[in-house]
């Protein structure tokens, strides 16, 4: 009898101690979960444009809200695809919980992504797409839609007989292709045969400048140009201004920068399609956290875009998009 009682007491005690330990472990695990790392691999990490600064601000806001640690890294320039692959490799070795990736190439990153996936690291793709099904979610501006907005605006303001041109940035870049398609959708419908071509400036202002200079001498009858990102817009505007055609040849640009705002004020640019980088960053991290916590996430999120003209540039909403408040 005595032995039986002793056994009972001991077993009950052991049971309770075990359950207490289990609870403690569970709680401790929960704490660990909160301190998980998420690494963000950006396109031009060394010298980020306003756009990427705002993306970062969005990520930081979400990081604070969801209480996660975020590390930033990336290659030195947007066109350094090799560099990004190398960085991704290093990130993969360090085994973070998730990677938020702004891909610098559509195809070349795919093998690396497969390795990352094998390592059990979740990938959230932002801004520009990779040709893979591995990323849990792709968050970006619907560039086709953004392109349509630009195309519609251009066809609205350019008279019927004028020729049109498109200045794109990096050949092969998905975002560029989609924007171009969006623009062409409208121009081919309402200005059939008027588009002289799409030209690539390799994301370089002076290149864009030269392209436009040449273009205007070859096709003096061009009445409107669509520029698909910031650098091409600024380069093209400078060229038109120098040719004395500022405001006469209509220009619809993309993104917002100090120069573009000036041009918009001066009437050198008629409109610019502005993305929502803050939302992209915020949703990127939010989705990464949701995915890490085992929630189902949607495969595709469109962060949206806004066409801003001189008249609408000072509304409260657009001010935040055009003049992102980024602390220096």
């Amino acid at each position: 009898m005595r032995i039986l009682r002793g056994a009972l007491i001991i077993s009950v005690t052991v049971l309770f101690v075990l359950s207490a330990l289990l609870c403690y472990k569970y709680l401790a695990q929960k704490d660990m979960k909160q301190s998980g790392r998420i690494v963000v691999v950006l396109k031009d990490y060394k010298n980020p444009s306003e756009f990427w600064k705002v993306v970062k601000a969005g990520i930081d806001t979400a990081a604070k809200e969801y209480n996660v640690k975020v590390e930033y890294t990336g290659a030195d320039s947007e066109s350094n695809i090799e560099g990004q692959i190398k960085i991704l490799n290093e990130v993969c070795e360090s085994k973070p919980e998730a990677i938020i990736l702004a891909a610098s190439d559509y195809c070349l990153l795919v093998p690396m992504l497969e390795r990352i996936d094998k390592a059990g690291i979740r990938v959230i793709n932002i801004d520009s797409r990779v040709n893979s099904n591995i990323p849990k979610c792709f968050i970006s501006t619907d560039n086709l839609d953004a392109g349509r907005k630009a195309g519609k605006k251009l066809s609205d303001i350019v008279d019927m007989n004028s020729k049109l041109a498109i200045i794109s940035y990096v050949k092969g870049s998905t975002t560029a292709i989609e924007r171009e398609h969006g623009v062409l959708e409208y121009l081919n419908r309402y200005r059939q045969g008027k588009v002289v071509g799409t030209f690539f400036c390799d994301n370089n202002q002076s290149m864009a400048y030269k392209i436009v200079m040449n273009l205007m001498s070859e096709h003096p009858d061009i009445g409107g140009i669509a520029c698909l990102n910031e650098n091409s817009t600024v380069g093209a505007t400078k060229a038109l201004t120098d040719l004395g055609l500022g405001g006469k040849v209509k220009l619809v640009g993309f993104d917002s920068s100090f120069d573009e705002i000036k041009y918009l004020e001066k009437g050198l640019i008629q409109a610019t399609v502005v993305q929502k980088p803050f939302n992209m960053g915020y949703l990127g991290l939010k989705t990464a956290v949701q995915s890490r916590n085992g929630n189902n996430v949607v495969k595709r999120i469109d962060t949206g875009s806004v066409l801003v003209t001189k008249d609408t540039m000072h509304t409260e909403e657009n001010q935040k998009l055009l003049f992102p408040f980024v602390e220096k």
Partner: protein
Amino acid sequence: MNWLKRIFGKCFKFKRIQYSIAVGFSVVILFTISIIAIVSYSLSIDAVKNNSKEYTYQLVQQINTSIESYINYMENISQMVLYNSDVRKYLSNQTNYSIKEMEETEKKISDQFISILNVRKDISNIIIFGSNGRVLLPYKNDKLNLYTIPKKQNWYKKAIAAKGKAVVSSSHVEDIIDNDYRWVVSLSCELTDKDSNGNLGVLLVDLNYSVINNICNNVKLGNKGYIFIVDGEGNLVYHPQQQLIYSNLKSEMIDQVLRTKSNYFVTGMGKDSRIYTIKESMDTGWKIVGVSYIDELVSNKSQMQMYYFLLGIGFLILAIVFSLMISSRISRPIKKLEASMKEVEKGNFDIKVYTESVNEIGELSKAFNIMIVKIKELMRQNIKEQELKRKSELKSLQAQINPHFLYNTLDSIIWMAESKKNEEVVLMASSLAKLFRSSISKGQDIITIESEIEHIKSYLTIQEMRYKDKLIFEVDVEEEIKNKKTIKILLQPLVENSIYHGIKNKEEVGHIKIIGKRIDDKILFQVVDNGIGMTPEKLKSILTDENISPRGMGIGVRNVNERIILYFGTEYGLKFESEPEVGTTVNVWLPVID
């Protein structure tokens, strides 16, 4: 209620009292501990909540104070400008000042402004727009943005509308200066002519938005909590997630903030539940709102939960150990008693329960011991009685087949036969036969009184014939009791006794009378003789003295007495009344048995 009872009944149906007690205790203790833990936990959570609520309010108040101090400073600047004679001169419509004089005045004002701007980096610019068309920009390198029309700007219109009162704008991008776009909060006020009250122009003081951004951004309200500011019209002055709100990815309860009169309101459910702490600024009309998440207010909530949980478990373990100990203490003597009982069941009566406890169970054990002793005693007694019965029966049989009597009787028969007394021979022989027949009585111990009477009559008949002229007998038994029962060979030893010890030694004819009657609920037989009687001493010793020789008087009588007592109890038996030379009466008391 019934199903509850049933479930409880099922759950607490234990084979051992110990478990019932232990489980009962544990359940009650668990219940109590849980309630205490929950109550004290929620109380401490409440206390922490209130503390942090207070803290948040003070924080919001602090932010308000520092923002107001900036606004006050801007107002001071505007006051200073308003009463500055150089400014008035600069703005006056009079044309009698030379260009050089005008330039000097402008320089003086600019210098003054620049000295302020140098000291206060938080003020981004001070600009005067004169209604006379003059615009004073303190920095010489600044140029007006040609694409912006100041008079169409909100701050300008509002300043004019406010008629000399300072107006604070919401946060916006200042695009007055060429090539400069800064986020600012503007204070504008109309400059009026002291005499004519006419409009002289508008003063614009811009405060770097980063000042407000920094103040609000540096505030920690937990991990998720934040501060935001709305102006009186519901425009966001500052919000950490302003862009998300504009994109409808998030919503902020601006309407409710504007509507509410109190300092607090709570919104949302569960993890999303949060407290809005609101402080309205008197100077600006802004509302500074601190949003803190309730689950974060109690930052060490899980720690506290853990603490209470472990404490509860600790006490529970302690309680269970104690309840097991107590229950075993209670049940141990019961178990002991139970084991003893089992022994008794098996037939072992040489057992004693030792118990030190003085409670009910101790009493029970004691009673048990006493009971066992009693049972043992009774059994011993029973065995003894059975033995005695058998012995007495043997003896009575012996008495009945007394060989002396038999051969004496047979002698008498022979003698009578020799004297040709045929009739007497027949009577004696038939009486002898009757005597034996009735004494056999089919082996039964208990016979009817009638056959006992038959038996004694036969006996007396034989004796009467043997002691001719010396013995006369008489039997007088009530008819009513004849069918009642009695033990057999009851009267014969008594009659024998009377004959051999009372009448045989007497000169005259002896009389024996047998009377049988019912007295109340008893039957009384009396064997009355007129023999020599007994002395009181002899009378006394007749039923008790053991040392009477087997053939002496009393052995048969005592045997009768013992048998009556054995069969019917001590209230029955023999009573002797005797007087020397008069006779003896033996009273035989029996129960009435049908």
